[in-house]
């Protein structure tokens, strides 16, 4: 701690940071550009100048850059002295000499850090009359616009893109007053976190291209706190709506989960909400019907007429929706809707999280790890934001070194230039090359069982009472022991595994390793495929296969399917049979898919943007999302459809479902803390979803009706679809829009944190449902090594950030980034088959009927005997993981295969 004096007042503050960060933590307004709370200081923009005095007598002082000045006890500073103000205002005037002053046509306008800082410094009059340098802009792909003339050369973009996110294709080009931030040539930004440039750039150089297509000012967007639905990490988001359409997604700060950044799937995946595949009207026997009541009574009739009804839940539906279904059909008739593999893997993961005794970390905790082992995952593709956190964890070795040299940890450029570029160890054992290989200490590529065997060997090296795999090659053995010794030395080692390679042994090996690591502060985390995989599994229920059996045995005749495309989970034959055998199939979903095609009764579900619910992320954190705008047409929250046919009106409120979830299901008991969020918040007044400058309210529907319609009522959440009401009593975690006087950009978040980059005041959102306890015995079911069988290959799904996830797959911008539809082959296998990249190849299921002709692509790191396919692409739906296939070169002339992505 230190006592410092700023403009004659005394403050007790932390002494491990810099003056800028301290002033902001104290709630003061001090302008800055190049400093970023997650990226530290480089002192490049000269905007944060303050006066520092030598001692109590000094009256002159000297200008220092606040972001480069460490806080020290007894220091005397002035923000408001005339010289400091003058300097800051002159500095911004200089930065602006080349700026085009085009705010009215700039998409950053209204949430622009440059506007905010300009106003803050009082630079209100433009004196520069010279010509301005201009640049050509580049086409940077489907996500990001480029308008280089607006650049003030703060270098934040390249520091984020290269240093923080590990990208290479965005650089600073040129020199002195003619610098250009762009690519070598036009082309898509390759990094999976490029969307953050929109928020990182303090000006309008990088803006959201998907938003441009239907742009609205920040102050005209209606917003509510939300959770990303596109993977299992549960990043917090702020989606914005105008005219009944979802317009964009930006980051919503969470102190423990996503911090300041999202991945591109999470930011640009929202397009599915507006997609033409949306189901907006109920359908009975494929005939659209208008009245909700007709659909409801038909639904009720089916339920009453049924001999028995079973419900199939979903890992992408909220806890409340799944619980409502479970209540409706009864516990014994509730099926989780996961296939056997998913079911087993997820149950094992939950069991390990609960009873394995090893802490399941948040992303923030992951960034503290000082050695990382990834077993069987390409995290950039399976849990993208986690990859960004792992990159930061690797810096801990250089932080430790900096500390011994007395370099403060926020001195970003200094630390990045430490000799030898020291880095904490990262080991990746995966099926083939991953997007973190560029920072890996060592990588290993093998089939899932070989990855698991390496894992068991590592565990055995750490603790010889654990079972060891036999017949390991000497290179595998020595790799295992070197990994083990690094993990042993680490203070906060982290083991990462997950469901991607559909292999139980991999998960078990990860547990053995984590358990065998001596450190008390070790962490074990698993990636899961969907936004509520963990919640659904905690809830508990039967497997999909058991539902199939129930129908087969004639024990049931009515099926309700909740937000689940069964064709993604089981063989087409099995699902066809199931849906045909059932006398009645009701499906509740938001997008058309193969399962909805088969529904006799189809009920339109609201998406995350139009309904509320609780999702549990991979860490075990239950988080709420709230409707951003009322659902259009006949769409409603799935939970509403399900409770509409229940007798007891008590169920007709969302909070009632949440608390019933908590009281009925022991694994969800702590959820009770979030059940009364609505009541508590409403005790004051409702929180407006629309900013106080929301415009056009009285006119926006005038083309339909000239009188202004009343706002839709929201009885389920603390929010109002209105601009009326106060936000002052709302905890920051419930603020729809992050805004403070003078701070219109998302960087206003500074005003709502306990300290800069800390937790939100009054707490981050969410409740951790699981805390590690107990201990489980060693797993000892070690698979034998994989031996390719001549003439046979095995399907190995590989997740892709763009394309594997069901909902974002329907987003137009994501689609443009989808990988080619092709199969990956080891070069030697390709040689045997006499195929090269781009050649068509015929796939035939060894023990089944599926055949498919597709292009081949050579992948040097893929083991022999495996065939890599992108997880979740419709083309590969019929080929589950581990399916054995035969391959044959197809006649190129007979095939009409397009090279273009879907």
């Amino acid at each position, binding site marked *: 701690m230190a006592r410092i004096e700023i403009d004659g007042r005394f403050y007790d503050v932390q002494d491990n940071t810099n003056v800028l960060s301290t002033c902001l933590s104290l709630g003061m307004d001090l302008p800055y550009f190049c400093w970023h709370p997650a990226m530290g200081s480089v002192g490049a923009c000269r905007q944060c100048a303050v006066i520092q005095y030598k001692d109590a007598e000094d009256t002159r002082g000297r200008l220092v850059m606040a972001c480069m000045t460490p806080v020290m006890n007894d220091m005397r500073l002035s923000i408001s002295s005339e010289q400091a103000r003058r300097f800051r205002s002159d500095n911004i005037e200089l930065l602006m000499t080349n700026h085009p002053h085009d705010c009215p046509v700039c998409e950053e306008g209204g949430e622009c850090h440059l506007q905010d800082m300009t106003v803050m410094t009082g630079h209100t009059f433009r004196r520069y009359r010279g010509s301005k340098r201009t640049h050509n802009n580049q086409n940077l792909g489907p996500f990001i616009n480029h308008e280089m003339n607006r650049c003030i050369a703060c270098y934040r973009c390249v520091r984020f893109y290269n240093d923080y996110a590990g990208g*290479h*294709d*965005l*650089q*600073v*080009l*040129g*020199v002195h007053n003619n610098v*250009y931030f762009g*690519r*070598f*040539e036009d082309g898509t930004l390759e990094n999976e976190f490029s969307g953050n440039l929109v928020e990182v750039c303090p000006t309008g150089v990088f803006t959201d291209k998907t938003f441009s297509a239907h742009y609205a000012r920040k102050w005209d967007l209606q917003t509510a706190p939300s959770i990303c639905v596109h993977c299992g990490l549960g990043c917090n988001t702020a989606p914005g709506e105008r005219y009944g359409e979802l317009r964009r997604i930006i980051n919503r700060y969470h102190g423990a989960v996503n911090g300041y950044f999202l991945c591109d799937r999470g930011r640009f995946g929202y397009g599915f909400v507006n997609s033409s595949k949306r189901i907006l009207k109920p359908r009975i026997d494929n005939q659209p019907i208008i009245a909700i009541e007709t659909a409801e009574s038909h639904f009720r009739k089916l339920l009453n007429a049924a001999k028995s009804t079973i419900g199939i839940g979903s890992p992408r539906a909220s806890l409340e929706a799944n619980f409502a279904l479970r209540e409706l059909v009864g516990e014994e008739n509730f099926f989780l809707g996961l296939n056997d593999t998913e079911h087993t893997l997820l149950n094992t993961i939950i069991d390990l999280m609960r009873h394995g005794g090893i802490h399941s970390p948040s992303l923030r905790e992951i960034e503290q790890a000082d050695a990382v082992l990834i077993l069987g995952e390409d995290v950039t593709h399976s849990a993208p934001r986690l990859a960004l956190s792992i990159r930061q964890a690797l810096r801990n070795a250089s932080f430790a070194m900096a500390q011994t040299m007395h370099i403060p940890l926020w001195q970003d450029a200094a630390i990045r230039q430490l000799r030898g570029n020291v880095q904490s160890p990262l080991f990746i054992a995966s099926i*083939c*090359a*991953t*997007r973190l*290989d560029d920072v890996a200490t060592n990588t290993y590529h093998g089939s899932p069982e070989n990855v698991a065997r390496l894992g068991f060997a590592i565990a055995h090296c750490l603790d010889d009472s654990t079972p060891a795999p036999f017949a390991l090659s000497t290179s595998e053995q020595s790799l295992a022991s070197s990994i083990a010794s690094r993990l042993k030395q680490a203070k906060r080692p982290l083991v990462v595994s997950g469901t991607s390679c559909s292999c139980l042994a991999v998960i078990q090996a990860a547990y053995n390793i984590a358990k065998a690591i001596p450190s008390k502060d070790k962490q074990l985390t698993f990636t899961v495929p969907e936004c509520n995989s963990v919640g659904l599994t905690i809830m508990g229920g039967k497997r999909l296969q058991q539902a199939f059996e129930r129908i087969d045995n004639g024990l049931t005749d009515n099926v309700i399917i909740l937000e689940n495309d069964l064709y993604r989970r089981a063989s087409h034959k099995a699902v066809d049979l199931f849906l045909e055998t059932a006398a009645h199939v009701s499906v509740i979903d938001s997008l058309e898919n193969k399962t909805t095609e088969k529904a006799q009764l189809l009920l339109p579900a609201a998406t995350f943007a139009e309904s509320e619910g609780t999702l549990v992320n991979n860490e075990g954190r239950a988080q709420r999302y709230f409707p951003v705008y009322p659902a259009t047409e006949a769409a409603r929250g799935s939970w509403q459809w399900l409770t509409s046919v229940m007798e007891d009106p008590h169920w007709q409120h969302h909070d009632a479902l949440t608390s019933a979830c908590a009281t009925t299901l022991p694994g969800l008991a702590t959820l009770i803390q979030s059940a009364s969020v609505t009541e508590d918040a409403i005790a004051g007044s409702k929180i407006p979803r629309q900013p106080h400058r929301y415009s056009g309210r009285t006119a926006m529907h005038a083309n339909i009706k000239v009188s202004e319609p009343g706002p839709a009522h929201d009885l389920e959440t603390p929010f109002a679809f209105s601009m009326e009401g106060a936000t002052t009593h709302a905890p920051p975690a419930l603020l729809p829009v992050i805004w403070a006087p003078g701070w219109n950009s998302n960087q206003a978040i500074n005003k709502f944190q306990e300290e800069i980059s800390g937790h939100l005041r009054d707490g981050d959102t969410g409740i951790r449902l699981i805390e590690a306890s107990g201990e489980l015995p060693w797993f000892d079911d070690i698979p034998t090594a994989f031996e390719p069988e001549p003439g046979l290959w095995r399907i190995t799904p*590989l997740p*892709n950030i763009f394309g594997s996830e069901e909902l974002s797959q329907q987003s137009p911008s994501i689609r443009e980034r989808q*990988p*080619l539809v*092709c199969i*990956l082959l080891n070069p030697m296998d390709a040689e045997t088959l006499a195929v090269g990249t781009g050649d068509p190849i015929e796939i035939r299921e060894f023990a089944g009927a599926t055949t498919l002709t597709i292009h081949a*692509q050579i*992948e*040097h*790191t893929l083991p022999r005997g495996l065939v*890599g396919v*992108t997880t979740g692409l419709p083309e590969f739906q019929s080929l589950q993981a581990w399916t054995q296939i035969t391959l044959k070169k197809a006649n190129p002339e007979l095939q009409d295969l397009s090279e273009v992505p879907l």
Partner: protein
Amino acid sequence: MKMQNKNPRIEGLSPTEIQEINAEMSHYEDKTAVSIEALKIVQKHRGWVSDDCLVAVAGFLDMAPAQLEGIATFYNLIYRRPVGKTVIHYCNSVTCWMMGSEQIREHLCRRLNVALGEMSEDGEYTILPIVCLGACDHAPVAMVGDELKLDLTENAVNEFLGR
């Protein structure tokens, strides 16, 4: 689908260039350390560094083209556009500026009928600015090819241009 295999497009480099770059590389642990030298080698043989050459060098050094471009465009002695046989670097730093470098520049441009950065019609000359050449006591100065010209006047310029 997965990481693209880096395919070093070294076809663009001549065997001599590759040999010279390799020789430089032997002095360093890290390939990227020879970025500037490699660009200079290519430029020595070809007069300038074309896009194709830049991509080839980047491939050879296992760098993204944008990374190497960042370096190439930072240094004003690496030419990313064709230049004349002789490049005239006139100093535009403070002392020379005070002593009339602007007039010298104008005179040069007029005499050769080119704008800054352009190549004269006969392919002989290109004029570019450069920072302080460390000969302030003889300002204004310029480098003409490898030769330092001191105490420049319009007459002196005419003389060395021979026109």
